[in-house]
């Protein structure tokens, strides 16, 4: 595999930044567990997915370095996520209107 490394050559993420992100992730995990105990009815799933999404954004941007990569990669990720979202939404055009 050719070593064409197109990321920001000078940017290394420090251990401190990683640890901070990790703390954030653990905190969010705690929040999501705590919130699950509250009866929110229909909002349970939206809350859970929102928190999971925030955690994912943290992992993507910091652990996976996406924040510091070429714009092309962010567009790619957007396209992939959008594709999955479209699949789900359009499927529900069938199921939500039965």
């Amino acid at each position, binding site marked *: 595999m050719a070593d064409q490394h*197109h990321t920001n050559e000078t940017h290394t993420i420090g251990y401190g930044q*990683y640890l901070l992100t990790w703390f954030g992730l653990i905190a969010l995990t705690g929040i999501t*567990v705590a919130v699950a105990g509250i009866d929110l009815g229909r909002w349970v799933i939206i809350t859970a997915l929102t928190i999971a999404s925030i955690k994912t954004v943290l*992992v993507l941007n910091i652990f996976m370095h996406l924040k510091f990569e070429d714009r092309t990669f962010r567009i790619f990720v957007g396209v992939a996520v959008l594709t*999955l979202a479209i699949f789900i939404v359009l499927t529900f055009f069938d199921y939500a209107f039965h």
Partner: protein
Amino acid sequence: MGMWLFLFTELILFGGLFIVYAVYRYSHPEQFHLAAMELNTFVGTVNTIILLTSSLTAAMSITAIREGRKGFAIGLLSMTVVLAMAFMVNKYFEWGHKFELGIYPKSPEMLAKTPGEILYFGLYYTMTGLHALHVVIGVIVLLVIMRMIARDVITAQSYVRLEAGALYWHLVDIIWIFLFPLFYLLH
């Protein structure tokens, strides 16, 4: 770029299962709720923390290799692997416990359950099973990468493979980040 594209395929692969989950949960909300009570939130939370920490150590190993700290990088990756194995051990006991209770496909107990519950467990085993398979694959990938670091195939100047392996590992983590609330936090 190649690894990112491969990760998209994994995203969509699991995405298909999430679509099935979404449709069935929408159609059988109470039965999903009922079935979820069989799952142990504590174990699920512990496993979540395990995987998040393993992502931390995997990410840190890249900084380590860029600083030329070969031993530290290998140490961090070893930690990742150990955490992954802890995850698998938990999963083994979780599944084992359910089998003891008769909660497995085609068991008499299962067939006596409501459709929503059967679907929930069908999805539970398929999704956590497929995820566990990816954990195992990830461990193998990371072990290969550790060997490459030890033999200076991966170095401070040439570490694309480490990045690719770490990216894969983070995806395994992200999938679990979504599986956890959907299966363990329904009540």
